[in-house]
């Protein structure tokens, strides 16, 4: 994957919220790449900064949040410094987005056809009939039966899973290079979740679209993603291929996260958990952000921030777990 130029390349991203008591750092030096056709899972607890990173990429950070440092490159071009008007042309055209709740993501008073056709015609030079034909093809592509008639229906006439398919069709409307999928399956039934992740994987393969899959569900990541980045308190603590990170986590936090997933085979009496809670933005400890909750922490962890090395499977940790042979 590293041989091709990445679709998305984030370097040392810094996002701050300026409030009454000074600036709070929400995202602290996040860097990662996504290759064409690759699915990168971004996992972490609520408030770790996963969604915020996605929001920054599509340029929809709401004040007082702002990008205070670092660069975001899309196909090698900087997009974090673009004006609102220029960024609007990239949204939907080059970067698609899928949000968590398909029930609220669609306009309740417009037909899904209206919404897809408008999105297509905003970005592509098609007339109404051509855009409608394309919309029907998209709906078929995301697995909506009888797309020719369903296109004129309103969102409330679709089930939750079907609506998320419509949302995916909307994200794909102008063949974007990258899709930011923010918890695309969280609001759905488990059986529907599998259908949606399978669909995302297939579309990613067929269209060569890269996906940044933001979720807190390690199961979805394991099913769907090629690589995974684990976030904690606004930093990436570990990144690597999914199979390696899930089987041989190197960062103690990742290891804790894996241990806390209830297994089907090992029936344990109690569910394991990581003691303590993620720090608030205004109380992130010096050094490694995870050190107060970490069994392996020592003086070094409390003094200096560990850095993420370059490599296929790396962890930002002073005392990483050894990779089992």
């Amino acid at each position, binding site marked *: 994957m590293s041989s091709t130029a990445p679709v998305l390349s984030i370097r040392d991203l810094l996002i701050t919220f300026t409030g009454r008591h000074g600036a709070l750092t929400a995202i602290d030096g996040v860097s990662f790449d996504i290759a064409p056709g690759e699915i990168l899972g971004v996992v972490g607890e609520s408030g770790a900064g996963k969604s915020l990173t996605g929001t920054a990429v599509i340029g*929809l950070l709401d004040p007082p949040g702002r990008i205070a440092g670092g660069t975001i490159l899309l196909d090698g071009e900087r997009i974090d410094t673009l004006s609102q008007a220029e960024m609007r042309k990239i949204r939907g055209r080059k970067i698609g987005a899928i*949000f968590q709740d398909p029930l609220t993501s669609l306009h309740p008073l417009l037909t899904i056809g209206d919404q897809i056709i408008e999105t297509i015609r905003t970005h592509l030079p098609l007339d109404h009939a051509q855009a409608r034909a394309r919309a029907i093809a998209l709906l078929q592509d995301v697995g909506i039966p009888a797309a020719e008639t369903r296109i004129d229906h309103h969102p409330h006439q679709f089930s939750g899973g079907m609506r998320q398919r419509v949302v995916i069709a909307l994200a794909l409307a102008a063949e974007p290079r990258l899709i930011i999928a923010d918890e695309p399956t969280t609001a759905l039934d488990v059986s529907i979740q599998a259908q949606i992740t399978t669909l995302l994987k297939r579309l990613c393969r067929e269209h060569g679209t890269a996906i940044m899959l933001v979720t807190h569900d390690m199961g979805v990541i394991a099913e769907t993603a090629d690589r995974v980045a684990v976030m904690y308190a606004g930093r990436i603590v570990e990144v690597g291929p999914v199979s390696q990170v899930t089987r041989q986590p190197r960062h103690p936090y990742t290891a804790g996260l894996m241990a806390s997933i209830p297994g089907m085979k090992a029936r344990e009496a109690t569910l394991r958990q990581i003691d303590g809670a993620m720090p608030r933005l205004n109380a992130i400890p010096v050094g490694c952000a995870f050190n107060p909750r970490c069994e392996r922490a020592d003086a070094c962890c409390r003094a200096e921030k560990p850095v993420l090395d370059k490599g296929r499977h790396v962890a930002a940790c002073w005392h990483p777990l050894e990779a089992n042979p």
Partner: protein
Amino acid sequence: MLVFLIKRLTNAAAVMFAVAFLAFMIFRFVGDPVELMLNEQASQAQRDELRERLGLNGGFLVQFATFVANAMRGDFGISYRNQQEVFTLIVERFPATFELVIVATFLSLAIGIPLGVYAAIRRDSFGAHLLQFVSVLGVSLPSFALGILFILIFSVTLQWLPAFGRGEVVQLGWWSTGFLTPSGRKALILPGITLSLFQITLVMRLVRAEMMETMRTDFIRFARARGLLDRSIHFRHALRNCLMPVITVTGLQIGNLIAFALVTETVFQWPGMGLLFVQAVTFVDIPVMAAYLMVVSFIFVAINTVVDLTYALVDPRLRQDAIAGGSGGR
């Protein structure tokens, strides 16, 4: 849709029945109509004769039934003051009030909606703050004060517009309209603006609040994430979602406008129903008051019903639910 329609119409009929009861009570129990209608020197025979003619000797229920039956035919009796059919009096005056209210409603929507959208999407600009400030003035200034101020400026000082009356009117069947003559249109301007000022600020504030609420919803966020044009997001997506409450409030306010036109009509000597009512109150002309109550209530109820039905046209979800007899899938 049919079930929905029948439900609404039944409700409307029930409300009208209650209003009829109230109007009847006023008619029957505020003073003795016989005493009010005849002069001091009338003999007992004349009194009894009138009492019989007005049907005042029947039982309570019989009288009420007669009143309702007559009211349904548009027969509200005879005005004490001008000895004319009350209904004819009101029908003559209705077009004047209605045209004034239509102009005021049109102004409130045509000016209020764009201002509300502007105040919502540029909410930190100087203009938006100024609008908020001015709208407080608009809400708190009484319309009679504004009306008199307008007359002073535009009629007395500048002499651009007439100070009172409807100007020339054209008779279209029983309807008299001021829209078709220059002087009629001119005469509508000042009362129209006076009546609409409160409405403009109301619509503006409502649209602003609804827009700000809608702009935070997921579907607007998603529309922005798809790179749609701001113009489309604001007017096609967000404003459309705000129209429901605007329709409701505007609809209900038409009823209010007809009632509040009373003040404006008095200031501008506008020959509408409100002025008729004010004169009726001065002369304790009970049949006119009762009929005014019935007619204004009827307009209120009719508008409410139409507003309810309009919902179904704007919101497809309601349409669906109505087809399924109120149990449509959400």
